[in-house]
């Protein structure tokens, strides 16, 4: 039984990180209807910037974590400004293809840095002994990661519900024409959506980097696992992303814990999310919490 609870605990840890990664993705989709295929690369960039600031520059890790979030904020904003601003008004299909191109470009840029080929790990800054409660053990990095994730998710939720900028972002996602007519600048909102997505992606990257170590492939994979998460939660629902992230984390941990090794299976944790994705697309395309406004053909 404690094995079960151990899986639940690590599932929640992984899942909350998925939720944080998915948050940025949903933000961009919500405001501009663009599927950002390059999200994993932004997550990786955030993690690498945190590492570079901590180890190479020598800034304390909490401050460099914040700084990397701010740097990625501006990075994502400039990406939007340089590549996507020109495509406002173009068909959405070409905007999505531009993000596919962006993914490739960011891959190339990261391969040029030492991070592309080698693995790094953050210096230990938390106690090494894991906390164990009733046979379930969680490491300090995981615990701190989950706490930061929850704080950030709460912050974002507040931002959307209460702040003027958040409300204008929601307005744009609801009806672009109407929000323009009440004086909301659409390009500014798109830029802001990308910037906040970068901000949350960097946070996710920093946390993942601390838990799993800095490996480009692992970090990049988070940008792809985001798809099953957001489809499960509903593409335009922030709350759905959080819930679906945790569900997906649990599913993966249970798959790894109970399916692998039996019946000659292995690596099912990497497979199941995508099968779930296809099934959901077939039978419940708006996900768990998405708005039922998806246009049927």
């Amino acid at each position, binding site marked *: 039984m404690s094995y079960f609870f151990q899986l639940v605990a690590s599932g929640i840890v992984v899942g909350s990180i998925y939720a944080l990664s998915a948050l940025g993705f949903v933000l961009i989709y919500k405001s501009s209807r663009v599927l950002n295929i390059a999200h994993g690369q932004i997550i990786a960039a955030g993690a690498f910037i945190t590492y570079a600031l901590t180890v190479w520059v020598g800034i304390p890790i909490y401050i460099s974590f914040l700084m990397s979030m701010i740097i990625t904020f501006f990075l994502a904003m400039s990406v939007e400004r340089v590549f996507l601003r020109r495509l406002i008004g173009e068909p959405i299909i070409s905007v999505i293809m531009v993000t596919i191109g962006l993914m490739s470009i960011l891959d190339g840029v990261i391969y040029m840095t030492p991070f592309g080929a080698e693995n790094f790990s953050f210096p230990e800054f938390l106690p090494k002994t894991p906390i164990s409660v009733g046979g379930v053990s969680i490491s300090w990095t995981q615990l701190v990661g989950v706490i930061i994730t929850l704080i950030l998710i709460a912050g974002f939720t507040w931002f959307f519900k209460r702040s003027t900028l958040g409300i204008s972002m929601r307005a744009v996602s609801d009806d672009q024409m109407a929000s323009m007519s009440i004086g909301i600048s659409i390009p500014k909102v798109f830029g802001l959506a990308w910037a906040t997505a970068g901000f949350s992606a960097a946070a996710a990257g920093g946390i993942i980097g601390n838990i799993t170590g800095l490996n480009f492939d692992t970090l990049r994979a988070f940008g792809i696992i985001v798809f099953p998460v957001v489809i499960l939660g509903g593409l335009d629902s922030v709350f759905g992303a959080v819930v679906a992230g945790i569900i997906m984390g649990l599913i993966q941990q249970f798959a790894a814990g109970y399916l692998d090794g039996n019946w000659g299976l292995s690596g099912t944790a990497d*497979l199941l999310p*995508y*099968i779930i994705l296809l099934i959901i697309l077939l039978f419940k395309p708006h996900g768990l919490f998405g708005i039922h406004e998806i246009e049927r053909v």
Partner: protein
Amino acid sequence: MSQNRWLATGNFFTSYREEQRIFLTNLDRLVFICFLVVLFVWPFFLEVGNKYMLVIDTILISIVAIYGLNLLTGFAGLISIGHAAFVGVGAYTVASFARVLGDSHVLITHAWPLMILLAGGVGAVVGAIVGLPAMRLKHLYLVIATLSFQMIFQWTINFMSFFNQGQTISIGRVFWFTGKIVRKQHYFFWYYVILVIVVILGLAVRNLLRTRYGRCLVAVRDNDRAADAMGMHPGLTKVYAFALSGFFAGIAGALHAYLFRGAGFESFTLHQSISYLAMAIVGGLGTLVGSFFGPAAIIMLDLQVENLAEFVKIVFSAALDLATALRPLTFGLVIVLFLIFEPRGIANWWRIVRSYFKLWPFRY
């Protein structure tokens, strides 16, 4: 009105039938036939090394794959970032026969045209299954479906012992009427096979696009509600587009497996999918000539990038491995720059050049 059958100065169509002709003038037809003859004859006069023949063969195979992607992305308006996986389905169809029957079984070495067709069929079925969500959804979601298919494909190949866990599964040498195709003739032989397939499929695509089954793809892309009102089923049309694209990809995959005499995981990754997409975009989405320009341009570019990386290695003599970095960087840049500055691709330049020569010496 009698018109010049060789040089048209304008459109004088009096029926839709005339407008739908493949060759507008006899001159077009002549140029096309001359071009084909040149394509078939040149290897007898020019000696090229195996290395370059391999590049040419790869370009031709990519052309077959891009026919499919162009039908899907260009004509039906559905993005696919799993095209390499569809190509992989074709390659692994042949490979699984090799795995079960042994790599020199008579089916593989003698009945290879059948195997290639079969691979196309399997590709079509898999394509239709992946496209099934299209029955209910609009195009945005289908990108995700293709991406997840790419992931499922990679998992299947990497973790199943039947597929040799992603290691190369070898395929035996094929036989022609003259006997076994030996190493020296291999690329030469496959050049002709693939060229014939490219020509047949090219004509097939061109023909398809002037029948109702091809034009309904464009109709659904442009306005699915209007298409619905005209009596087409948008969902079924999209599934059908996926099946078509899977068919072309499957054939390309089988050819790939035969040409490289094996199927290995590394030719069908997400990166390959993106470079297929780059080929389709650079060539020009929604044009048939784009399917020829795109693969040629991207594969040439790829070679140049490799040369550049080699050059950098020599000049700086460091353990600097730029090839892995430069390839995604250039592909990404090419995709983005073409989408921003020339969304109609190289096919548009071709159109401009063509109309210049057609109207010469007049400006318009």
